């Protein structure tokens, strides 16, 4: 014999009835329906029987090693993010330490600083003077020895100076200014790797790096001729004051 559900049957509600998931009102309604519907009574009987059978089914055997495996995994400390990134951070630090001394990087930093300082409406200066002896004295009092510098050369003359912070160091920044041209002379402490001289154009500026009397000197200006002329004047003043030695600069 087979029983056929009628349109009045709601099998889902019968399921919920078996699972005791109905409100009292719905439960009563389903009970009333069950009393008159063999098909739904059959469904109810099947589902109750099935639930009972399911509870007695053999449980999958727990692998003996699983608990130990889970415990082991839990005890294994996750590597903290800081440690995971350590090799990368160390790599970056090394690259930065090496890179900060690279001549192109130093040149780029100085060109940026030159543009930054001269872009200001009012030049920021800690000392105002057009006398190279006077400014050398001021820097000496502030812990930096300057080489012998011309007070004026290549159409620019000394106006003052200050200390400028770069990314990784502080440099002495001397301002030279002329009609529509500016020139910076930097005394750069710390590493700057290049052979005898380094000439480049970066950040829109002409940059010249020189080693002189154990320090690194840099000339930066937008006008290549002014930089050239200033460099020649510097060599001359070196000849005048024998303390200064400017090596030949790589030809551009």
């Amino acid at each position, binding site marked *: 014999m087979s029983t056929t559900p009628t349109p009045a049957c709601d*099998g*889902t509600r019968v399921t919920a009835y078996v699972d005791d998931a109905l409100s009292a009102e719905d439960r009563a309604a389903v009970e009333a329906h069950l009393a008159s519907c063999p098909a739904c009574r059959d*469904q109810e009987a099947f589902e109750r029987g099935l639930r009972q059978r*399911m509870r*007695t089914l*053999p449980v999958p055997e727990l692998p003996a090693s699983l608990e130990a495996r889970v415990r082991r995994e839990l005890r294994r400390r996750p590597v903290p993010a800081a440690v995971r990134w350590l090799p990368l951070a160390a790599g970056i630090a090394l690259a930065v330490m090496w890179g900060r001394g690279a001549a192109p990087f130093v040149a780029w930093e100085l060109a940026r600083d030159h543009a930054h300082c001269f872009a200001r409406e009012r030049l920021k200066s800690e000392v105002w003077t057009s006398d190279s002896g006077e400014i050398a004295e001021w820097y000496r009092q502030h812990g930096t020895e300057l080489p012998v510098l011309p007070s004026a050369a290549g159409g620019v003359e000394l106006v003052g100076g200050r200390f400028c912070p770069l990314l990784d160091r502080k440099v002495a920044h001397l301002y030279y200014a002329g009609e529509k041209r500016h020139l910076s002379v930097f005394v750069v402490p710390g590493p700057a790797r290049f052979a005898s001289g380094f000439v480049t154009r970066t950040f829109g500026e002409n940059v010249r790096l020189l080693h002189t009397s154990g320090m690194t000197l840099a000339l930066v200006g937008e006008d290549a001729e002014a930089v050239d002329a200033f460099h020649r004047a510097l060599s001359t003043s070196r000849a005048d004051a024998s303390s200064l030695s400017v090596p030949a600069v790589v030809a551009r």
Partner: protein
Amino acid sequence: MAIGNIRRRDGVFPRGALPHSYLTREERFEAEALPHLRALYGTAYRMTRNAHDAEDLVQETYLRAFRAFDRYQPGTNIRAWLFTILHRARTDSFRRQSRSPQTVELTGEGPSVPPSQDALAAGGEEIVRAMEALPEVFRSAVVLRDMEDFTYDEIARILEVPVGTVMSRIHRGRALLRSALVRRSA
């Protein structure tokens, strides 16, 4: 070390009387969560249908639960919480394999349903086989209800679906089991 007792320098505390503040996070987690290992594995096995995947799924579940343990509120239903994580881990593994559990939603009852006695005459193994042949959406709902005895509300939270969906999945799952068992015995 038995799950039931946690040894500390200052003594052994029976489970249920754990002075939580004395325990490390791992110890608290193990004491609360590991007693449900067998049930989780049983359900994982029913879902994946093989021991290897079930073990991986259970391990993934415990790792996730441990990482999220700070968000678990002590005293609430940890069993349901663990099953929720199990289900999520299962769904994610499907997503990784870019398949999805079959989402067949059957409509209609079929014209004629054979009497229940025929279906229930099936042996335990036949029931297991019929269960394994069910689409996973129905299988997990039936397993959570009929084997783990969760309420509809709990199952709704575990599967992250509305209660109405739970109800209809259990209904469809059982109806499919019934036809499968009848076909077997016929």
